[in-house]
């Protein structure tokens, strides 16, 4: 599709701070295409060597849960203490559990 405005599409930027680490959201940039999005992300978010790798993702493809629904949305996990290790008793003196 031909781009008509001069604002360019929005890209969300994810940076890996160190080899092996998960990619974390850093912010976003505007860019006309994916190569430029990567260069812009580099120039905007890693000026001090903050990363070993960058992902850019078209912002329109991000689907987000809504803050207003945070209660009911995450409710299923709220009353399930038995999903946590502290729910189970480890007798004193037993190691590696």
């Amino acid at each position, binding site marked *: 599709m031909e781009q008509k405005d001069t604002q360019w599409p929005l890209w969300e930027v994810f940076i*890996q701070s160190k*080899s*092996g680490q*998960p990619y974390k959201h850093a912010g976003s940039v505007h860019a006309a295409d994916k190569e430029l999005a990567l260069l812009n992300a580099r120039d905007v978010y890693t000026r001090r060597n903050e990363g070993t*790798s960058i992902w850019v993702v078209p912002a329109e493809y991000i689907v987000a849960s809504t803050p207003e629904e945070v209660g009911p949305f995450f409710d299923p996990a709220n009353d*399930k203490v*038995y*999903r*946590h*290790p502290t*729910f*189970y*008793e*480890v*007798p004193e*003196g*037993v*190691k*590696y*559990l």
Partner: protein
Amino acid sequence: MSNLSTQELETKFQQKIDANEYIEPKDWMMDKYRYNLIRQISQHAHSEVVGMLPEANWITRAPNLRRKAGLLAKVQDEAGHGLYLYSAAETLGISREELLNQLLTGKAKYSNIFNYPTLTWADIGAVGWLVDGAAIINQVMLQRASYGPYARAMIRICREESFHQRQGFEIMVTLCQGTAEQKAMAQDALNRWWWPSMMMFGPNDKDSPHSSDMAKWRVKRESNDDLRQRFVDRVVPQADFLGITVPDDKLKWNAATQHYDFGEIDWTEFHNVINGNGPCNRERLNARIKAHEDGKWVRDAAVAYANKKRKKAA
């Protein structure tokens, strides 16, 4: 990068691994590395999924609500862990459909341990204690495997699994502090699960066909025999605490090595189970196939609904 020869790319790839750096999905990687990782990660994913079956067998018969909730949460976790691992495998360029197909046609393997039956409630204790205990030893090592998505999935899995082993051990403690009959159940479960758990670490190092490449690529950072020894050293004192006996008359503390010595695994049984002749191989696969077929209408309905909404929006 594209100007480099394959030889140069391979050298750089190995240097990166040797420098303890991680390989990400978009990075150049050797075909053999990709192939072997798909095999290992998908086997791991299949094991999580098939591993739900022997435990699900007892959800409706758990002795009380506390046990039932704990077991249910554990089985849900295994489903989640299967999904993390399928996703990690898919970053290597294989589709979910193909992975599932390999499982359901019997082309792909999953951990041998899940071809053994859970005959009594004590087996649920033994599985959590021994099978998850063995899996955790292996998975802790894999948290630093060279493939980024695999390593990160392992970190998440290990964090979540810390309760699995505990819930199993708690069941064992309760049984061992109960009646003589309950304690005998615990002993019987240990008798049946000990050797299959020992086999989870795979063949002895001298007979392990896939180990050398995987070690070179920093996927397997420790050897089968070293991991197995760690398992024995950790679990035997736990069995002592429970007051039940590991079924190995060669098992003995060795003061010189500061490790337990132990007997030889029955490798004939190991190979029999791998080759499809374990007690439950056919039952497990049929259960997976049935679950997949029974779920077809749900998958179809989801797609039909999405298509309908798209049409309405257009």
